[in-house]
């Protein structure tokens, strides 16, 4: 949790003023204060007066120290709503990125476009499990790479095209690229063993037949019957949901691409 908080506030350009094993104190940026502190009236007031507001300083405790909390202090864990708010914020702020690899080179360097996406795959029935697929498509050759985030975790990036670098334009548009990646994931999903869905469907059938037996002799209660039946369907109906958690365009040097393919052929 501590690692998350540290990285999160650093990435969001909030000043960390104090930190120990149990707590972290952060001077929020104005943007962060507006986003998470839930005080729209204060900001509205300041905006109207055309004044600069004073963002709050907040302390987050990762362990329960047993002491009562003072103002602007709170506990945070993976189960607390605050954490999920921060994670949601991180997701929203990084929905789409566009970055260029930066090499310390004086020779002209060619960068190639990649569409990089984190798919969130949810299996839903009478329970739910999820996984994240980190995949990327080379927008020239159409090569697909899996587990992409780990592979490029140490690449240095720049916001704009660095000097002496030039960019190749894609043959495949990002939109049709996304379709390709989606299709690949869907093909794989269709190949999977769906025992879980079968089980859920069986349970659903059983429950519906029990329900039918209950209302058999009371045709007047059809409204009630429909309502209960729909509830059973909602509880058990199996489905897989596919969405994009975040993604973007990355321009990587041709050398990177080479190492990916080498690594693949070596396998």
């Amino acid at each position, binding site marked *: 949790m501590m690692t*998350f908080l540290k990285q999160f506030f650093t990435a969001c350009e909030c000043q960390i003023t104090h930190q120990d094993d149990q707590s972290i104190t952060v001077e929020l940026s104005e943007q962060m204060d507006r986003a998470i502190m839930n005080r729209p009236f204060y900001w509205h007031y300041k905006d109207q007066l055309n004044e600069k507001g004073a963002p709050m300083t907040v302390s987050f405790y990762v362990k329960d120290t047993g002491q009562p909390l003072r103002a602007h202090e709170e506990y945070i864990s993976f*189960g607390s709503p605050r954490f999920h708010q921060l994670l949601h914020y*991180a997701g929203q702020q990084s*929905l789409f990125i566009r970055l260029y690899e930066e090499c310390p080179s004086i020779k002209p360097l060619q960068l190639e476009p990649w569409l990089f996406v984190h798919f969130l795959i949810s*299996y*839903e029935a009478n329970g739910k499990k999820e996984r994240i697929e980190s995949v990327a498509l080379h927008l020239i050759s159409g090569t697909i790479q899996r587990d992409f985030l780990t592979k490029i975790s140490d690449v240095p990036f720049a916001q704009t095209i660095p000097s002496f670098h030039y960019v190749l334009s894609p043959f495949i548009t990002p939109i049709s690229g996304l379709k390709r990646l989606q299709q690949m994931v869907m093909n794989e999903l269709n190949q999977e063993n769906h025992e879980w869905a079968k089980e859920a469907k069986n349970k659903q059938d059983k429950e519906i037949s*029990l329900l039918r037996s*209950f209302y058999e002799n009371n045709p007047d209660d059809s409204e009630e019957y429909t309502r209960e039946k729909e509830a059973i369907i909602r509880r058990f109906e199996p489905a897989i949901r*596919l969405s994009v958690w975040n993604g973007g365009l990355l321009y990587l040097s041709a050398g990177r691409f080479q190492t990916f393919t080498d690594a693949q052929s070596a396998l």
Partner: protein
Amino acid sequence: MKPPILIDDSWEKQLPAWLHSAPVVSNWPLFTLAAETKKLVIPTDFHGLLTPDFLPSIHFMPHQIEAARTVMEEMNGTAILADEVGLGKTIEAGLILKEYMLRGLVSRTLILTPASLVNQWAKELRDKCKIYALVQKKKPDWSWNGVQIASIDSAKQPKYADAIANTMFDMVIIDEAHRLKNPATLNYQFVRRLMKTYCLLLTATPVQNNVDELFHLVSLLKPGHFGNSESFNNRFKKGKRSIHDQDAFKELLQKVMIRNKRDEMDRQPIKRCVETIRITPSKEEKAFYDSLAYLKEDVPNAMTLLTLQREACSSKYAALSTIQKLTGQKCEKVALLAEQINMNSKAEKTLAIMKEHPEKTIVFTQYRATQRYLEHYFRENGLLAVSFQGNFKKGKKDWMVELFKGPAQVFIATESGSEGLNLQFCRRLINFDLPWNPMKLEQRIGRIHRLGQVQDVHIYHLAYEQTVEDRMLTLLHEKIHLFQSAIGKLDDILEENWVEEHLHDAFHHSKSIREWEIKVHNLTAALE
């Protein structure tokens, strides 16, 4: 069977705009962090619980975790949580709710509780499960897409009922669900109409008076689980208070109900010592009680006479409050007899118990008049007593409990509003009079015999000899027997060494109260 794959295209739709717009600042560390952290917190398996790991500072009891797991995996989020009083049903429900929320299956939730427990629920959910619920008060907003708590009595009012019935809730939780045992009531019909995906019913006492209650409760949760009422009657019902084919019945019940028991929980179970003290009335008390029978023609019905007799067994003040509403010369005579009584034998006994064990004690009575009398009586005898009633405002209730924790030695409570009270710092309870319903007794005892109690608890029942209270003891026994055959063993509420069979016979074959009393009288005489 191939499940359909549903594509959420919201990202795809925004993509063209992102591609064409001027370069926005791309935050690579945030991008990586968002992806990696999301991976950590999504449920990677259908089974198991996320919550205990995600709320490390909260210590859930093993039985609560096990119950939550069973409700998720085997009962698919529709269950009756029927733990014995004081084992933390609220936290169990909160844990289940939290788990569904963390898995992203539930957001809009309605929690219905008795009015007195609304704030307590909000507090426990906040402290124990980090769920911040909206308490719906004077101006409720039913469109809130989150967890909301309302009292069932305000929610079912006609002005709100339709709005609520037209809202789709992911989960509905109903506390003290034994109030839904009767399908003819407004409560039941209101809950019947709710649209919900998951549903939890909480009650420590799923059966109170007869088997049908259980049928109705289960049918509310899962219609058809026990068949329809006809097949249920044929298959399971044997008279009003007993059950055919107990094994099959229990097996079915266990599929929708979880019941943890105290003695299974504790490593060193807290013992419950129950003592029924039969008190010989004084001459004046006896004369007064017997004289009530002469009012037979003056009272509107037999029920009133019975009520009068029960009140007289509590205190003369309780009975007098009813007698004063009647008219007639006989009433005045009876009232005169009441005035002759200058000592309440039960109060004396209570005082004796407290002198013998000088520690904090709870006294339960059903009557306000008795409560007032007792408060006065204890004060006269140098004991600081506090009275507790259900209609007190929340602040006053809390204050009364604080007083009892502090200086006061006696806590005199009436039935109402005692649900949800935590008084485990006290271990002695005296039932000054008896309710008809054994589950009310269980609720009373649950105030002190609950999680957190570290000593054995002592319960005393006071009953006058040869009065209507004898009959009530019998009836209580019969009902407890039903509960045990339906739900399982109940902790000792009454002593076991009662001559059940004989009393049962006497009760069922007597044509009048009088006849019954004579029979009981003869029986006790024979025994002695």
